[in-house]
């Protein structure tokens, strides 16, 4: 039944695509036409000062010097609220487009930056080493359509993360530079090669495919930006620039399933407050910018943003007005089809002194939700075991 309905939807969309190409995104069936934007908060953002349990005395007991004063907190409920630097997310929250995920983690957490981010990016168990990113495994078993410029693009990082190990992925900072440099990549030659040479030829092919898709779709500046009803806010900082780069290439008609953007600097062991405030401001402003730009393209309903980080921070502040590596963390899911609200569990701080937080949502539940409910793909064999999905999305 489900398959038949999918089939009919696909047929319908296919017909519409041929007649009304401009509506194709809005009416596309679940599939890789829908975009996933992963936002990596590198260094392990302190989730407890991001989604703040301001009604808890324990919070202020554990954080005498870095706790965010109650009147400053942007209240989301009677228990929790956002860091004041994140005010630009409030309109999205009020529009029910932000799911706040509290207590995201995994069993037997690893507090090493490297190992922990590897766990997040390969979606392995904490004692399991996998050589491929979770998206690479997905795209191998259930590939993106041939017309796609790449499975994914990586912005603000050299590291492919969840696309590591074989996905068609390109790292972009400046699309024009990329297209220019890509001329150095060779055309793929058929023939029997060692696996090492085959891999290089594959990457050269990925580069050329992505570069030619970027070139075939030259930059289309808006007809008259001043007249546009939703003129995007002015970009400031590297994160906003990456958002604009992404929006630009999508506006050109470049098709990808995933973008990963990294915001660096969250390793705040000392003097955390000013650094985190700046970064959370950049994050919130950037996400609001992304909504504006995707909405202008009619694609906000087909955009899903998920944040992640290697770990959260310990509830008790350290002696340097900072926080040390901890476990469960708060994350965000945003998009036109997100069922906004609070999910998971507010950090149980009572009785805690030097302890770490338990998790309420396994991050692989989020990945399963993305794969099955967002893309309509099969997640059953991706993560070693099945993880229950969360009702985070509207149909």
């Amino acid at each position: 039944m489900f398959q038949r309905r999918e089939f009919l939807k696909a047929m319908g969309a296919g017909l519409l695509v041929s007649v009304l190409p401009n509506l194709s995104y809005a009416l596309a069936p679940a599939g890789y036409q829908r975009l996933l934007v992963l936002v990596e908060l590198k260094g392990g953002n302190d989730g407890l000062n991001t989604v703040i349990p301001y009604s808890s005395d324990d919070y202020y007991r554990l954080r005498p010097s870095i706790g965010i004063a109650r009147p400053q907190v942007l209240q989301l409920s009677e228990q929790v609220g956002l860091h004041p630097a994140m005010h630009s997310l409030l309109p999205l929250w009020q529009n029910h487009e932000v799911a706040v995920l509290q207590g995201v983690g995994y069993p037997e957490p690893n507090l090493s930056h490297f190992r922990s981010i590897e766990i997040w990016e390969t979606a392995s168990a904490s004692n399991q080493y996998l050589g491929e990113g979770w998206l690479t495994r997905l795209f191998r078993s259930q590939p993106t359509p041939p017309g796609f410029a790449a499975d994914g693009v990586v912005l603000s990082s050299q590291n492919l993360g969840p696309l590591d190990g074989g996905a068609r992925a390109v790292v972009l900072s400046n699309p024009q530079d990329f297209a220019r440099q890509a001329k150095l990549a060779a055309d793929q030659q058929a023939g029997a090669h060692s696996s090492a040479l085959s891999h290089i030829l594959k990457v050269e092919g990925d580069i050329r495919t992505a570069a030619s898709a970027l070139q075939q779709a030259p930059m289309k500046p808006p007809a008259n930006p001043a007249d546009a009803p939703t003129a995007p806010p002015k970009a400031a900082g590297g994160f906003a620039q990456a958002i604009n780069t992404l929006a630009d290439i999508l506006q050109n008609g470049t098709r990808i399933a995933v973008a990963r953007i990294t915001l660096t600097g969250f390793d705040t062991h000392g003097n955390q407050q000013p650094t985190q405030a700046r970064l959370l401001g950049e994050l919130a402003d950037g996400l609001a910018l992304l909504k504006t730009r995707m909405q202008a393209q009619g694609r906000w309903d087909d955009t899903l943003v998920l944040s992640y980080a290697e770990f959260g921070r310990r509830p008790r502040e350290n002696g340097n007005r900072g926080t040390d590596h901890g476990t469960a963390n708060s994350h965000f899911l945003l998009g036109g089809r997100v069922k906004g609200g609070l999910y998971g569990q507010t950090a149980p701080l009572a009785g805690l002194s030097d302890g770490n937080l338990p998790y309420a949502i396994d991050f692989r539940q989020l990945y399963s939700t993305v794969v099955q409910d967002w893309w309509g793909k099969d997640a059953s064999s991706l993560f070693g075991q099945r993880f229950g999905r969360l009702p985070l999305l509207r149909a």
Partner: protein
Amino acid sequence: MNCVIRLLLLALLPLQAWAGIGEAGARHLLSRTGFGANPAQIALYAPLSRQQAVDRLLDHVSYSALTAPPAWVNEPFDRPGKTNLSEDEKKALQKERNEHAQELRGWWLEEMRISPSPLAEKMTLFWHNHFVSALDKVGVPQLMYQQNVLLRRQALGNFGQLLHTIARDPAMMRYLDTVNNRKGQPNENFAREVMELFTLGEGHYSEQDIRQAARAFTGWSLDKDFQFVYRPNLHDNGDKTIFGQQGNFDGDDVLDMLLRKPQTARFVTLKLWKYLVSPAPNEADIQRLSALFYRDNYEIRPLLRAMLLTPAFWNSQGQLVKSPVELTVGTLVTFDLTPPDWRALAGLNRQLGQDVFNPPNVKGWPGGDAWINSTTLLTRKQFLDRLSHDAAPIRNSFVMADGQMDEQRGREARIRRLVQAGLRPIKLQPDEWAAIYHVNTAADATRLLLAVPPAQPLPADMTGAQAIAPLLLDPAYQVH
């Protein structure tokens, strides 16, 4: 009659047995056991038999670096995390450390380039990526230098001795938290990694073995000058049960237990095979070589010799992706180039994913295909393009309107490019290089530069000098 045939065969045999490895064989051996291969070195090895060539390599190993280290390596240093510093002082200290770290990286890369025994550097790099420590956590460049000296001294020595030495190495003790492991408050970091990554590999020990082994290493500590010291009052003297054996073991006992397991010999042999031969190990060879390694009490040199003499090694051309240092330093070696600022080259290697003295985590660089993604590949190609733009005979690219060549303008443009690239005195002069080494034809150049035929066949009638640029940019140049 029979006798005559036998005589004939005997006469032929020496020819076969002593046939030289040839240019392609020499290039393969030198590239795998070192960094790149210069035509002069190739010429030296080409007439030798496999055995002669391998023995020659192994007989010319030096155990200390030729390049003088930066002066500060022997100077006393402040403990990282020293308190009572102002913000400005902290920043200044951090800046100094970063500069030292860059100098240290440059120092090693330079040594790789000029070393008369690149094999020593190749093996030092292997152990650096096996017994991993990283400057980011160790925090003291001096300690990383000391560890590098230690790894080079024992690079072809005895693995068991190396294991015992590295376990007491101050950089290692800081990197894997041995210094925080004390009676009653065990820190399991070293105990875990020594089993998982240094000796047995995953699946050959239990969590119980790790916990008990951590107790055995208690009392190993560093004094205020970061030198190894044993503190008996911090050592746990209780009985431990490790691998089913019970006793009041100390750290050295645990290391000896690990060495008694043939799995350790297998694990290290397999890793060395993947480093020098191919990503696809051949089970029969691995079994034979690891049995030899075990029987020889973990002597590294005979293992290396036997591995390099396997037919599989000689048939593995093109099966390995060049690591960033193999690509960059190797290219410099091949073309006799020396950058003025090795720190810039260290920066390039960091961009390419191999920041020496700073592997990404305790597992080290994964290597192989992971070296190559769209960014690192384009960065590699840009580096080679910069050199090979230079390498393209200048007269090809600066033809003036009247058909004359503006060589002056060409030279200036080339120098400008190199200045921008921070690599000024790198002067790849293809005509000169080709003339010196008699690289007359494109086929000569291909044999000297590539392990496998180019993925993009060269146009006919190219000279050796003209072939250099396309060969450097060919995907096949990325493998060896």
